[in-house]
């Protein structure tokens, strides 16, 4: 695999010149050259279902395109005769008994015609919709065009949702999710992004939005400063830092009931930067209970508080490795300016990950537990952050944003292929997503001042 080759090179180089040579190598394998090519022709519906197929086709294409996993062959190259079901294909072997009939939809094309130029697709999604018992029904298939027709089906499935545009979109999301799953990538449909939003001066609340920018909703209504959201691994709770009672303190909020959950804050000048452990059973945070901000871990209600770091510096933003549940990355200014460090869950074996230059903050784990994204001013003046990704084992890093305002607070999507972050490149701080290679930028919010996004399930 190419990724492994890169790391071998990195390790060799690291031995010689401390990894500097390989720093700008590709960290995440998202390159167009290796992508599968999909043909996704517009599907048609019978009767009443046809009026919703515009929304359906737009959603299906959008989800597959946004995944950043494939190259979608342009629709302009497609054959005019689009198959609606498997029997629309003309079998390769002329000897086949049932080939005498005219194929009204497939146009007598073979599946392999979709693999040939000009379409040149490795995969084909097709199907048709209709109305059955008042439901919007899709029969969808996904074929590998490189195989003989008999063994080409990867899956074929029937989807049902309430009749209407919402139901059609939902079916499209489900069909796209099944296709993505074939490539080992979870769909981001219905995943939520929570963030801090300032929509009246001096008041910050937690808001949520779907990964595609829809369903924007306000979560908290404290009319205070509610900042630094963190979401539990099951997506049911959000912890954040609140100034509602004077000094910054942690509050935990149920996203299911919309109610505040108990959390005991020790008396201290600050309790901030909460983060759930990957098992969802504990919360890490920074507290100044013994002096300056240090990292602590406690139960979900704040009980059983235990100190993790022990330094004469500011230690904040603890993030536990989601794969191992043991490694913690965090920021500390023990060396001067804030930098990113790694340590064991017990606070031992502290190692500097960044190189000590600039200010490195906002670390966030890739779901694979191998990479972190973070914001760094390396090579720029104070305040000019860019999003970087680092392989934690080798400390090789790559810069994802370049010369486009201030870019901070990266957080990985559950698919490990997308990153949400905040940027003021549009003139004000807003929430953006991109692929983990820095491509396919998309702005999710436009109103207010929005920062500190965190991508949830």
């Amino acid at each position, binding site marked *: 695999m190419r990724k492994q080759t890169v790391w071998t090179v990195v390790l060799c180089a690291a031995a010689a010149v401390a990894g500097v040579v390989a720093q700008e190598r590709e960290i995440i394998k998202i390159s167009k050259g290796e992508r599968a090519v999909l043909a996704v022709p517009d599907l048609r519906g019978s009767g009443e279902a046809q009026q919703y197929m515009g929304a359906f086709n737009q959603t299906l294409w959008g989800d597959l395109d946004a995944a950043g996993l494939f190259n979608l062959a342009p629709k302009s190259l497609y054959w005019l005769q689009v198959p609606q079901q498997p029997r629309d294909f003309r079998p390769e072997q002329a000897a086949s008994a049932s080939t005498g009939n005219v194929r009204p939809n497939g146009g007598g094309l073979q599946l392999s015609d979709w693999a040939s130029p000009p379409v040149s697709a490795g995969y084909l999604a097709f199907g048709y919709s209709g109305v059955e018992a008042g439901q919007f029904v899709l029969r969808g298939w996904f074929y590998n065009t490189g195989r003989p027709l008999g063994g080409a089906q990867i899956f074929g499935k029937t989807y049902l949702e309430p009749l209407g545009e919402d139901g059609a979109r939902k079916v499209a999301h489900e069909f796209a999710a099944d296709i993505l799953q074939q490539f080992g990538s979870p769909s981001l449909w219905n995943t939520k992004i929570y963030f801090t939003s300032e929509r009246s001066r*001096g008041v*910050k609340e937690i808001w949520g939005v779907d990964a595609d920018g829809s369903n924007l909703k306000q979560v908290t209504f404290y009319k205070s*400063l509610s*900042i*630094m959201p963190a979401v539990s691994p099951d997506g049911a709770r959000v912890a954040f*830092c609140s*100034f509602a009672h*004077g*000094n*910054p303190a942690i509050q935990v909020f149920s996203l299911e009931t919309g109610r505040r959950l108990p959390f005991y804050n020790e008396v201290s*000048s*600050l309790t*901030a*930067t909460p983060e759930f452990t990957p098992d969802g059973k504990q919360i890490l945070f*920074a507290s*100044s209970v013994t*002096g*300056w*901000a240090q990292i602590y871990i406690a139960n979900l209600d704040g009980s059983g508080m235990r100190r993790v770091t022990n330094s004469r510096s*500011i230690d*904040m*933003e603890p993030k536990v490795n989601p794969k191992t549940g043991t490694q913690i990355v965090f*920021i500390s*200014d023990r060396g001067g*300016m*804030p930098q990113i460090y790694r340590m064991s869950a017990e606070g031992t074996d502290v190692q500097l990950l960044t190189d000590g230059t600039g*200010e490195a*903050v*906002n670390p966030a784990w890739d779901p694979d537990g191998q990479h972190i994204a973070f*914001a760094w001013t390396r090579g720029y003046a*104070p*305040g000019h*952050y860019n999003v970087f990704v680092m392989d934690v084992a080798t400390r090789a890093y790559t810069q994802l944003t370049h010369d486009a305002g201030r870019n*901070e607070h990266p957080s990985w999507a559950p698919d490990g292929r997308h990153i949400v972050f905040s940027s003021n490149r549009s003139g004000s701080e807003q929430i953006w997503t991109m692929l983990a290679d820095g491509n396919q930028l998309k702005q999710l919010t436009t109103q207010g001042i929005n*920062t*500190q996004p965190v991508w949830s399930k």
Partner: protein
Amino acid sequence: MTKPKISALLLSVSLILFAAGCKKKVPPPPPPPPLAATPTPTPPPPKPALQFSAEPGTIERGQSATLRWSVSDATDISIAPGIGTVTARGERQVSPTDTTTYTLTASGPGGSDTATATVNVTAPPPPPPTPTPVPKKTLSELLSTEVQDALFDYDKSDIRDDARATLTHDAEALKSIFTEIPDAVVQIEGNCDERGSAEYNIGLGDRRATAAKDFLVQLGVPADKLKTVSYGKERPVCTDANEECYQKNRHDHFAAAQ
């Protein structure tokens, strides 16, 4: 000389003197004219007689006094200001807001005359004393006028030389404030400029507030009177992207604790 000769001399001298005197003699005055024949004079009509008083002569503002008057031998009677024509005898309640001299004017065949009566108006007694007879400054006012912000370098919480001077002054001011307002508690608010991250700045602002508190406690300000809070970069005093504004935001501010 003989006696007749002397007599003759005297006579001649008298004559000469007489003759000289006759030359300047004025004509005798004419006889006085006869007195005109006037009728027997009747006694002239008497001038009006006035009596005019104000009782009481001194009132508080808002109270009233009574004007009384009695006039004889008059046909036109009026009182000014503000009353006008009145009858020969009467009384009238007045409530002037300021000291006023009323003038009674009466005229009749025998002439006219005036009389005055003054109503002195005094201010009402002052309202009962307010709860704070001496206007005291509030804790917030004292802090804003007597205690200055301490400024910091970027990403630092060290007390700079200028902050050292500021805080030394602030220590005395705070001690004086705590003497004046014994139950006062002051909150030291650590703030940062917008360039650092929001998260780290919460920690940095906390350290700035703590640094100032430690310094003040060393100078004898009671520690239990000082609270600290960090606002990070959440409460900027300005939002311009230049060093002047950044410096303003890198500060410890002193406020009344809630």
